[in-house]
């Protein structure tokens, strides 16, 4: 029993670490060769986990070899355009200049209902609004609307806009992020002064606080502190 626990922990750790090194893509965005590796690794890890008669190395070595193969293929496809199109394939244009490319749909065995479904998922109800639809190598559909159908942006109306960067999270669950404070050239004394303006004496009472690029501080006090103060 204990052996199974230890083997599970070892295999989980190795698989977890290797998948972390392999990259940050989500399952829906995996290239075909990456998806194959995920499926194989899952199976390889499960067998020696439950069968103690099989040496652990019989599971670990193939997982390591798959890791090497994945890293090698990713490196080759990074360096060579030809290899990239061979390994990952090429994006397919399904709608070109507002016309559905039937030959491409047939070649990909992709029916019109699949296309309409993917368009609806992209919030496009009318296929007539689409200028280009491209099926990416990851299986995701990219949609480019006709210029008259796309949402209006400030540039179209000549409206000037201010710079909008990422708000910096300064306190999360009562913990001050000194790293983020340093990034925005501020310190914890400044933060305490600002919190005092909200009537907060202890940063530990704050659930979340962030500072946007306009210099506005957003602050939410923890629910139990609010309840205590209300009572």
């Amino acid at each position, binding site marked *: 029993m204990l052996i199974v626990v230890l083997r599970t922990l070892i295999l989980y750790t190795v698989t977890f670490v290797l998948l972390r090194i392999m990259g940050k893509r989500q399952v829906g965005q995996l290239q075909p060769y990456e998806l194959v590796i995920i499926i194989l690794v899952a199976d390889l890890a499960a067998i020696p986990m439950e069968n103690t*008669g099989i*040496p652990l190395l019989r599971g670990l070595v193939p997982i390591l*070899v798959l*890791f090497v193969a994945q890293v090698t293929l990713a*490196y080759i496809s990074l360096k060579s355009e030809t290899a990239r199109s061979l390994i990952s394939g090429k994006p397919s244009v399904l709608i070109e200049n507002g016309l559905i490319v039937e030959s491409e749909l047939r070649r990909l065995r992709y029916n019109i209902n699949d296309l309409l479904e993917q368009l609806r998922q992209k919030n496009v109800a009318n296929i007539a609004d689409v200028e280009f639809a491209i099926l990416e190598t990851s299986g995701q559909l990219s949609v480019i609307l006709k210029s008259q159908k796309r949402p209006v942006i400030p540039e179209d109306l000549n409206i000037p806009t201010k710079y909008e960067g990422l708000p910096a999270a300064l306190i999360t669950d009562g913990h001050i992020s000194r790293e983020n404070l340093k990034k925005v050239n501020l310190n914890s004394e400044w933060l305490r002064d600002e919190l005092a303006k909200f009537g907060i004496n202890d940063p530990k009472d704050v659930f979340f606080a962030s500072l946007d690029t306009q210099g506005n501080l957003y602050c939410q006090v923890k629910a139990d502190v609010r309840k205590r103060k209300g009572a």
Partner: protein
Amino acid sequence: MRVFVSALILMGLIIGIGIWTNLSIKDSTCQLSGHIDRIARDVRNESWDEALIKTRRLEKVWAEKSRWWPVLLDHQEMDNISFSLARLNEYVKYRDKSLAMGQVSELKRMVEHIPENQAVTLNNIF
């Protein structure tokens, strides 16, 4: 690039250790086979005392050689050899020639099967 180079080094290590373990297993099984042949000769000649000493020596050699084998080989395969060795010991002790000869033959086949199973051959790959 760093991950790629590390992956290549890892692959080199895996292949290197794989070759080394195959050679090491082959060498160890050759030694074990030699011991088994000597026991077979004694059993055939009914030199029971000699055969018993050699069987016990073989048990010791097996325990020593096979210490790290379970890391690489099927545990069931290892257990089968240990059980076979225990049976051979008893057959030799009670001087049963036909059973001892049969057991020696089975044991030798099992030991020889290990490197055969690990060898890089088309049969094993497919």
